[in-house]
């Protein structure tokens, strides 16, 4: 008993290692990576992430016995006046759930990336990039761990910004190319866009933190949540302000309306990045933030309703866009936005357990889908490579991510096909895969509390099933629409094994929180007080499954029965016309943002640069006013008037006077001895005369 107690608290004190293992991994790769082989670099990074996973498992094990968790102090951080923010880790059921997802899925994706980035090395031939990739990847794990394990909003913010940085670095990983590998700044632009849009969200986060500090005098979770009810009683407006500012942060990081625009462009990064950062972990940080701030949100139902509505609208909005996309990763990107909408809606409604449940299952199947999509892309690249070796077709621009170039890959890439199918069905919410359970828990909660949200989410779920059906039919069934697809090959084991593990998780992930058992809910209950276990509603589940099946049937009618031929228009385009164009063009949100914000901002910047800075500040104020006045002062006033006419003239005048005086005096000295003698005589006479007269 004593021993187990020691070992229990021992496990808790291991928590800094979840940050340190990946940090050590990245340091080794930075310092010694230059001497290491490609394989070693990749496996080292994977091992660093894997060790973090082991630590997370140990923490989870300790939590089984001590479910209330522990705060592990690590170091003093900020100590200014009354502000004390120590650097301490919070181990509770919520944070450990996140740790397990981040490090678990993260490790699988690390391993996958060993294979994926190997192809990158082969085609782009730069080992330094390979190392850089894994350094960034480990850095991301470090930052994500800080985010989920921090015990204060400030520590969370450090991680929040850190993962934003990693996201920026990895989206722009091929910064000198566009998504098709041509030299361009497109990828760098995408990275910049993600960074800037995230800054807007982060600004909201900062406002929330500052308001919180003003109202509570602290940023520690414990202090804030302890005083929350009291403060809400005195000034409820402040809590609403904090939660809504926080919502801005959430919309930025978790790609919700109106700040979701960066996520589709983020697909410019390598596919493992899309899977890890832009599907499974980083984008769920917003969901985690809301779940973590549950004690605040539950105090203000108005804010909760807004959050739920934002999530639900985003879920539907993004799902419609996903229907009109041709890029395999873009479909998944919009699907991710939509699913994040589900989660945000869930945590907004107060169904924190359902939201976290969907977060976990989504991490499984969306990582699976992205990684399989990466495998498909690699397959097509191999096919294209194979082709261009045989025929001299180097100039042709080939997009390995365009689903119109695919078709019939079922036979060439069987493993990828099956795991993709699992992921797609899980996402569509087909019984008994993971997505079914988590999505239906959200829907059941929504149906109980917010009918509007329920309707929005159900329609979104219908679209979800439809676009996934469309994707699977287009990619894996029918005939190949491009020769490259005909020559596609299955990916190596290092890629397919993580896929199989993820597929397994996507199938059985629902076990975490089966209706009636509610393992995850009771697990999270220790951290988030008052989480009600969702009631399983057969009507809701039946309806959504029915809708999903109808959607899949519809997609079969359109894309499966008569497969798309080469260069054929999308059948939906004929049926829906401009509506489909809207979906295809993302409802013109980017264009609207450009017209309304970016162009205006550029105009403003131009105005500031040209008129205010250039003409007023530089030309007029500096050049004319300051430099002009100075020039006038020095040149005209000081130089010409005071110096030349005053001082110079005075001293020149003295000299002139001396010259004139001496010139007139020299005439006396005429050189005639006799005139000198005469002068002496006169002198003597004058002196004598004076003496006499005196």
């Amino acid at each position: 008993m004593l021993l187990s107690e020691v070992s229990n608290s021992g496990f808790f004190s291991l928590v800094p290692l979840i940050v340190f293992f990946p940090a050590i991994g990245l340091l080794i790769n930075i310092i010694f990576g230059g001497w290491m082989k490609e394989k070693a670099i990749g496996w080292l990074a994977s091992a660093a992430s894997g060790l973090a996973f082991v630590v997370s498992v140990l923490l989870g094990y300790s939590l089984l016995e001590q479910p209330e968790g522990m705060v592990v102090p690590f170091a003093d951080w900020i100590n200014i006046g009354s502000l004390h923010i120590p650097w301490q880790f919070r181990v509770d059921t919520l944070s450990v759930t996140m740790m397990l997802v981040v490090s678990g899925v993260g490790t699988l994706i690390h391993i996958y990336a060993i294979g994926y980035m190997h192809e990158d090395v082969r085609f782009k031939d730069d080992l330094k990039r390979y190392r850089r990739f894994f350094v960034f990847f480990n850095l991301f794990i470090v930052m994500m761990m800080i985010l989920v394990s921090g015990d204060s909003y400030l520590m969370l913010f450090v991680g929040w910004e850190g993962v934003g940085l990693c996201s920026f670095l990895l989206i722009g990983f091929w910064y000198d190319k566009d998504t098709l590998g041509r030299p361009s700044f497109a990828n760098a632009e995408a990275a910049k866009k993600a960074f800037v849009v995230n800054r807007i969200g982060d600004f909201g986060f900062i406002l929330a933190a500052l308001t919180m500090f003003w109202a509570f005098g602290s940023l520690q979770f414990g202090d804030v949540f302890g005083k929350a009810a009291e403060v809400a009683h005195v000034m409820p407006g402040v809590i609403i302000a904090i939660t809504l500012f926080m919502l801005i942060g959430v919309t930025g990081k978790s790609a919700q309306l109106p700040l979701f625009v960066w996520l589709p462009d983020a697909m410019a990064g390598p596919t493992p990045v899309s899977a890890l950062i832009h599907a499974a972990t980083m984008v769920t940080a917003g969901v985690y933030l809301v779940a973590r701030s549950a004690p605040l949100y539950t105090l203000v139902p108005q804010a909760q309703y807004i959050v739920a509505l934002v999530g639900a609208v985003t879920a539907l909005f993004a799902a419609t866009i996903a229907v009109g996309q041709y890029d395999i990763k873009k479909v998944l990107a919009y699907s991710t936005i939509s699913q994040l909408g589900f989660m945000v809606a869930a945590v907004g409604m107060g169904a924190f357990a359902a939201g976290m449940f969907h977060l976990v299952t989504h991490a499984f199947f969306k990582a699976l889908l992205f990684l399989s999509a990466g495998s498909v892309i690699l397959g097509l690249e191999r096919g294209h490579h194979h082709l261009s070796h045989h025929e001299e077709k180097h100039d042709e621009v080939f997009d390995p991510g365009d689903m119109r170039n695919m078709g019939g890959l079922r036979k060439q890439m069987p493993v990828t096909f099956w795991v993709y199918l699992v992921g797609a069905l899980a996402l569509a919410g087909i019984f008994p895969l993971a997505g079914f359970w988590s999505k239906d828990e959200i829907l059941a909660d929504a149906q109980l509390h917010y009918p509007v949200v329920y309707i929005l989410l159900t329609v979104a779920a219908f679209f979800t099933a439809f676009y996934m059906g469309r994707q699977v039919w287009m990619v894996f069934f029918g005939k190949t629409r491009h020769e490259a697809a005909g020559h596609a090959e299955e990916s190596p084991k290092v890629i397919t094994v993580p896929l199989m593990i993820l597929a397994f998780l996507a199938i059985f992930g629902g076990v975490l929180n089966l209706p009636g058992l509610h393992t995850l809910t009771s697990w999270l209950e220790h951290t988030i007080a008052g989480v009600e276990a969702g009631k399983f509603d057969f009507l809701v589940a039946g309806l959504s499954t029915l809708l999903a099946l109808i959607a899949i049937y519809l997609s079969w009618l359109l894309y499966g029965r008569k497969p798309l031929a080469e260069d054929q228009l999308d059948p939906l385009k004929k049926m829906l016309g401009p509506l489909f164009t809207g979906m295809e063009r993302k409802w013109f949100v980017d264009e609207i943002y450009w017209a309304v914000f970016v162009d205006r901002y550029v105009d403003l910047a131009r105005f500031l640069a040209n008129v205010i800075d250039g003409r007023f500040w530089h030309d007029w104020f500096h050049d004319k006013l300051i430099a002009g006045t100075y020039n006038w002062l020095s040149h005209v006033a000081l130089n010409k008037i005071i110096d030349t006419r005053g001082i110079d003239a005075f001293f020149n005048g003295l000299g002139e006077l001396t010259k004139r005086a001496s010139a007139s005096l020299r005439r006396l000295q005429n050189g005639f001895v006799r005139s000198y003698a005469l002068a002496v005589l006169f002198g003597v006479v004058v002196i004598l005369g004076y003496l006499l007269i005196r």
Partner: protein
Amino acid sequence: MIPLNYYLVISAILFALGVLGVLIRRNPLIIFMSVELMLNAANLAFVAFSRAFNVLNGQIFVFFVMTVAAAEVAVGLALIVVIFRTKHSIDVDQMSALKG
């Protein structure tokens, strides 16, 4: 006994003549002679006073004056010789190297 005033008048006339000589003539020899004239005019005044007041001081002074005059002439003549050697002329108006 001739009164003192007569001597003094003669002495003054002689001195005036010496001054005129120095101022007017351009030949240094004559200038020197005029200078001698002025010195001797002074000597005459000394002697006359000595005699009138019965003190020997004036007579002694005359001896000094004559000695100094001899020395002065010696130096002056030497200068004139040197000037003649360099300028081949002893016209005092041409000695104007120090003209301003």
